[in-house]
């Protein structure tokens, strides 16, 4: 087994898991809302990008458009539907599921079963008898950049501090003059934009069809569930862990075992760590401070 292959495969998996999960993780971690329409949000981002690129917009700009379209959609949905359901989190799952259903079929009706696809930019890296797509290497760098950007946003900015205050204690935050309504809207829009970004980034490598969202769901849910309460740390850790497991098992036994190994890992982690990987880290930190 070529170690470079394994490294690329890991980086690729890491990027896919992190980018699949990050939008879902922000919305779930910050608001407690499980967005079952997450895959369809990604699909919208991919459509925005592909349609713009087909219309002659340069790819980077087309990706920005994809992100914006999804963010605007997230804003509208939050204002009209999601906000009515904050105190009914389980109902919000049903609502977002319905939104996903409408989006998939709506896109199908409006744009048909397929649209012309765009090709992957940036060419190839060749090494020995192997070669690898440069764009996919870029994707893993972008995944890290997204995590870093969110880290800065939520820990180093005024907005981030307000957002975290809102999550920890909405009543107190309100008493301190934080407009919690706006915080929720912003968080949902950020989550949507991240989903849109995922769609935009993967549009040149995947088949953009109305049902494409489902191919992100497994990774997204598994990563979120084993990540635990702390969104960024959790997503990073689960991207890392699942990425390694998937890369190893896929390389050793094939794609199917890669997937199954990942899912079984999820179940074991949930069973052993009730607060996910984040919880494990906190425990270790506590123990070290405590002793």
């Amino acid at each position, binding site marked *: 087994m070529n170690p470079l292959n394994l490294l690329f495969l890991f980086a*690729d*998996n890491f990027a896919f898991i992190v980018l699949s999960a990050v939008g879902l993780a922000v919305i779930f971690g910050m608001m407690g809302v499980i967005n079952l329409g997450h895959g369809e949000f990604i699909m919208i981002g991919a459509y925005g990008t592909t349609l713009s690129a087909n219309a002659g917009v340069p790819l980077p700009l087309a990706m920005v458009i994809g992100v914006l379209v999804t963010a605007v959609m997230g804003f509208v949905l939050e204002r009209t539907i999601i906000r009515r359901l904050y105190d009914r989190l389980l109902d919000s799952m049903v609502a977002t599921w319905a939104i996903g259903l409408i989006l998939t079929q709506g896109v199908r009706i409006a744009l048909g079963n397929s649209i012309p*696809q765009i*090709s992957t930019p940036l060419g190839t890296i*060749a090494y020995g008898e192997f070669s690898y*797509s440069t764009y*996919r290497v870029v994707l893993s760098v972008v995944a890290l950049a997204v995590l870093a950007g969110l880290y800065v946003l939520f820990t180093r900015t005024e907005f981030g501090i307000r957002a975290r205050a809102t999550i920890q204690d909405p009543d107190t935050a309100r008493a301190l003059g934080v407009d919690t309504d706006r915080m929720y809207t912003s968080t949902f829009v950020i989550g949507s934009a991240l989903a849109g970004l995922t769609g935009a980034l993967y549009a040149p490598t995947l088949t953009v069809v109305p049902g494409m969202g489902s*191919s992100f769901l497994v990774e997204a849910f598994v990563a979120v569930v084993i990540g635990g309460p702390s969104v960024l740390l959790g997503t990073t850790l689960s991207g890392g862990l699942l990425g390694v497991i998937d890369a190893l098992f896929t390389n050793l036994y094939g794609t*199917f075992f890669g*997937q199954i190994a990942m899912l079984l890992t999820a179940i074991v982690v949930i069973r052993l760590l009730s607060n996910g990987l984040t919880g494990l880290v906190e425990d270790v930190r506590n123990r070290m401070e405590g002793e």
Partner: protein
Amino acid sequence: MCLYAISVSRMNDGRSGPSRRSFLATGGTVAGAALAGCLTGGGGSGGKDTVTLGILEDRSGNFALNGTPKYNASMLAIDELNDDGGILGKQIETFAPDPQSDNKRYQQLTRQAINEEQVDALWAGYSSATREAIRPIIDQNEQLYFYTTQYEGGVADSYTFCMGATARQQLGMVMPYLIDEFGTDIYTIAADYNFGQISADWVRVLANEHDANVIGEEFIPLSVSQFGSTINNIQDADPDFVMALLVGANHTSFWNQRTSAGLDLPFGTSTVMAQGYQHKRLDPPAMKGVYGGFNYMQEVPTDRNQDFVDRYYEKYPDAPYVNEECVNNYFSIKMYAQAAESVGSTNQEDIIAELEKGMDVSAPEGDISLQGKVHHMTHDMRVFRCDENHDIHVMEEHKIPEQFLSDTVGVNLRENDQTKQYVPADYFEAADATRE
């Protein structure tokens, strides 16, 4: 394996009254007297003023991309027949719901088509899974059924007519060509479900027959859309060509990914392009060097085909492509009409007997014929090559009959009724090789 024969015709008791079909008809062919209905038993309706065809094709859900052209082509055929005076002078009506790529829904709708709408013949389903889900219902009710997707082969069913090319016909066309052109080391990537597994079995059988070797084989779940390791594995194995038996939207992502990863090998396929017109949807050169063994692509360079393609786009100006299944639906409806005319009725038993005599069909792909004994078609098969500009070239062409059931298994549905699907693993050692 005919457990479902235990309670044959169970659905025929307590039949419902007048049918409510016609207001759903799509072909614009409603003949006023539809409400007359009929209460006669048997697998169909003899004395109506109209002929009812059931067209169950997906226009939403996972298979909408493949189902929609099938639906469109069926409607085109029916319109043309109606314009020519229908079948036996009766106008054709349709029962054409949208099963939404959901097999449960297919089962419900198949029952409805047979028991409530009393269709005279049924066209239904894209995937093999769908076919297998509804075949027990078809057989219980002795319903004449046309399955029009190209498929893994092996279905010997007294009520089912398989109109698509089988894996053996398709692979038997393209593989010898690729072995001649590029060499004998083959790497197979196949969708990890029945169709892919059996097709991969056929790749091994055909490799064996042509002194070639399958040096690597990989089965990829339908849900996978990331192919980094697959591409590595292919590069590692360094074959002369790859047989790609990929299915569905997720797998379509393979082509962009292999191009951007610089995997520049010849690919053989029985699935890609002819069904999902990837060469139209993807930016060149994603499909460069892909060779398909098909009975039909829109690009078939004949006047007869051009005429058909023109008519199709006249009715569906926004349609993206005329695919392989599209043509199978089209000619099989025409073939059914031909059989009904020569029998002089729409009695299903009579039509099945008539079809089992064999029949020559003039199809958009060419002049082909029905092998009555096995309910399959002898197709006009071609090797299509996709170049770097995504133009399609026909490299070779000849007629290939269904061989597995007729020669290897020795099925004769004229004489023996059955409802079984045979698999190559039971007949070929090469197909039964233990897999990794």
